[in-house]
């Protein structure tokens, strides 16, 4: 009980909860901004109304989502100082810079142009208005880049030296921090996973409507865009995950040994698809494993040697002094599998979906559908799936919207828990990072307040999303089809109601 309530434990729970929560909104925001921008570009270029309706529909869901992303992000900027003041003192010289860059270069961009986009429909000429959502999209990605560079430094500190007199780490090479392979691999992996998330979100919601044959024109376009996004992003997520994994095998062998619960190093190390038993004791009662895969993941070589948890622990003890350098093995083991499992499940569903809803390829004439008809799900050459199977097909498509969200959460839990007991790998342990003067009562208070508030907001947000999903894409108005030609709105419109108001 005492251990459970140590300030470090509470602070970690708080960090975990608010960060995982924040990261439900982040990948959706990143991907939906770009996807909405893409749809709006299609509208501006083709003037097909379905694209504008799709823009408005997905734009609305995007806004409901980004609002939560923005407000839950505020806490992130301050919590290092609040709960991790010792950490902040020690690494602020390095870690603060990317955060400040993020605020100055990305947050301003995002939040200013999102305001212009929301309220700008009747204030900005068409192309300028379109440029605003692209700006938002660039802002979201820049933001991701800087914060991931900061996180990568915690995973693999580079470009710094320890100033003994001041008792802190100091930056010596900022460029190295921004461009080290850990950062590049993490950015690549996180952005592709973000698009997998947004694509699956589109697929799921489009499937809700298409299964009921509603709003077909808009939803078919959305389904297609979603599926293509899922497949491309899914593939790239796998590739980038593999890249990141290889980087991690070199930089944090403990994390990767813990991912597999590989206790003792071996050649041709296996990867277990499923394990049942007590992985924390280093043996499994039931196990289904494929030999050589872990070796391949680590070194591109099925026969290579992979160090185990015990070897690495010993090596770290020799390097850093006595202590236990193992993370919580069952957490890393299962988090790693759930990340891959859920992420790849949506990728596979994307491929199958793309095939089932194909437009023409290997599709007989009678199964091809017109612009306003929902697609048949066609598995084999000449026959659509029966009603029951079709129903399941759509149902699975709907479920898939949650899969990448789950995968993302476990991915972060894996990468952060797998680094323990370090907060900055090899440099600073988590327990030395916590704020010494913040009392247990204070942390319990904030943890309770955030948890309650976030739970309430989650209910509100999901209900609101459901309402707008159900409402479907809006009908277009005169004003939508006649955007202004002058900045600030056309002069004749001065006394008209605003196209959008709060």
């Amino acid at each position, binding site marked *: 009980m005492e251990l459970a309530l140590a300030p470090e434990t509470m602070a970690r729970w708080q960090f975990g909860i608010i960060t995982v929560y924040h990261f439900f909104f982040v990948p959706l925001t990143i991907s939906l901004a770009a996807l909405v921008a893409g749809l709006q570009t299609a509208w501006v270029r083709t003037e097909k109304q379905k694209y504008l309706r799709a823009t408005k529909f997905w734009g609305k869901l995007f*806004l*409901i989502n980004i*609002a*939560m992303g923005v*407000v839950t992000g*505020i806490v992130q900027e*301050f919590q*290092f*100082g*609040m*709960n991790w*003041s010792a950490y*902040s*003192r020690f690494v*602020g*010289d*390095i870690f*603060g*810079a990317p*955060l*400040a*860059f*993020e*605020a*100055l*270069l990305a947050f*301003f*961009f995002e*939040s*200013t142009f999102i*305001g*212009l986009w929301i*309220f700008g429909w009747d204030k*900005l000429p068409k192309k300028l208005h379109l440029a605003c959502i692209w700006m938002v999209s660039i802002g979201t990605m820049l933001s991701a880049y800087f914060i991931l560079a900061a996180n990568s430094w915690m995973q693999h500190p580079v470009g710094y030296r320890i*100033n003994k007199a001041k008792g*802190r780490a*100091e*930056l010596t090479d*900022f460029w190295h921090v921004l461009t080290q392979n850990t950062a590049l691999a993490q950015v690549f992996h996180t952005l592709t996973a973000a698009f997998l998330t947004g694509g699956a979100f589109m697929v799921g919601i489009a499937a809700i409507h298409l299964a009921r044959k509603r709003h077909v024109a808009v939803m078919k376009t959305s389904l297609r865009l979603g599926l293509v996004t899922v497949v491309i992003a899914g593939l790239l997520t796998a590739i980038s995950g593999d890249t990141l994994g290889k980087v991690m095998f070199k930089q944090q062998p403990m994390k990767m040994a813990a991912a597999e619960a590989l206790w003792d190093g071996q050649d041709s190390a296996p990867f277990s698809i499923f394990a049942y038993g007590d992985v924390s004791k280093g043996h499994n009662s039931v196990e289904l494993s494929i030999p050589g895969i872990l070796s391949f993941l680590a070194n591109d070589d099925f026969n290579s040697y992979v160090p185990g948890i015990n070897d690495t622990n010993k090596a770290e003890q020799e390097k850093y002094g006595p202590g236990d350098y193992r993370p919580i093995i069952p957490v890393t083991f299962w988090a790693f599998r759930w990340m891959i499992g859920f992420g790849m499940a949506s990728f596979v569903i994307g491929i199958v979906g793309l095939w089932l809803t194909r437009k023409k390829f290997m599709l007989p004439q009678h199964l091809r559908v017109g612009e306003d008809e929902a697609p048949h799900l066609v598995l084999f050459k000449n026959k659509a799936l029966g009603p029951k199977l079709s129903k399941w097909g759509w149902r699975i498509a709907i479920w898939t919207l949650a899969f990448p969200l789950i995968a993302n959460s476990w991915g972060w839990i894996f990468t952060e828990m797998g680094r323990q007991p370090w907060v900055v790998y090899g440099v600073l342990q988590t327990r030395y990072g916590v*704020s010494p*003067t*913040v009392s247990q009562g*204070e942390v319990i*208070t*904030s943890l309770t*307040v955030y948890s309650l*508030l976030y739970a309430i*907001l989650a209910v*509100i947000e999901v209900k*609101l999303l459901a*309402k707008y999903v159900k409402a479907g894409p809006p009908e277009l108005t005169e004003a939508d089809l006649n955007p202004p030609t002058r*900045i*600030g*709105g056309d002069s004749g419109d001065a*006394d008209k*109601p*605003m196209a*959008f*108001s*709060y």
Partner: protein
Amino acid sequence: MELHDVWFVLIAVLWTGYFFLEGFDFGVGILTKLLARDRTEKRVLINTIGPVWDGNEVWLLTAGGATFAAFPEWYATLFSGFYLPLLIILVTLIVRGVAFEYRAKRPEEHWQRNWETAIFWTSLIPAFLWGVAFGNIVRGVKIDRNFEYVGNFWDLLNVYSILGGLVTLTLFTFHGAVFVGLKTVGDIRERSRKLALQVGLATAVLALVFLIWTQIDSGDGASLGALIVAVLALVGALAMVNAGREGWAFILSGLTIIAAVAMLFLSLFPDVMPSSLNADWSLTVTNASSSQYTLKIMTWCAVIATPIVLLYQSWTYWVFRKRIGTHHIAVDASH
């Protein structure tokens, strides 16, 4: 001027930008209860800041991030020390952001009313607490030899800091009322002027006491100059409100904020967080700052990015320059 001095100035600029911009949108939030007579007027008020409030708030995030990067010790001491008040501020800012974005997303009256209530309180509370926080920073708090805050929550509530809170609360409300005068048409514009006069007078009294107290406690020649500018600007703003010169009134109410924040920072310098226990334990621009290398990189970033930010944020204000009246609000309330 050394780099850590430059960053002291830049952090002061960021806080000034934050209080100038979010100051009026806190004020507008407060006025939804004080000024609006019906729901439509409330919406007029909310829409005067609709497109810009989010961008305004980023000034705070940037101030936070820049403090972390340039003065890690300051960042660590301040935010771990002022843990509970900061928690309250963060919670209000979270609810406030959601309130703006979600209020109009459902037509039900109780839904909208609840969010309107939220907008009022979540504007009022941080408007007050920021003043309390800065009052404490300037006055000095219990900081030990390790730069750790060793006081408790109640130590932060003292006459001086509460007075500081009342100053920011009234000053932001005044600034907001002047902004509403500039941004609306119709009846509400006239009423905002009357209210601005009343709130402005109250602000003048409170601010005068607070700033003179600050000057006597920790001021020097430069801070006295800023104090005089602040007071003159406030008097000028009141005169301009009275004369119906809305643009000038806004410039001057803004100048009041700029000068008042400048005065606080001038009376701080070269400390960033004085210790009330022992002057040797105070955090200063030298002992709290980052390395030269980090400061240099940050300076380049700020020098290049800040003008661009100012440019596109100003452009936003120009795009949405038209005044808003009740006739601009569409009847169907739900989006």
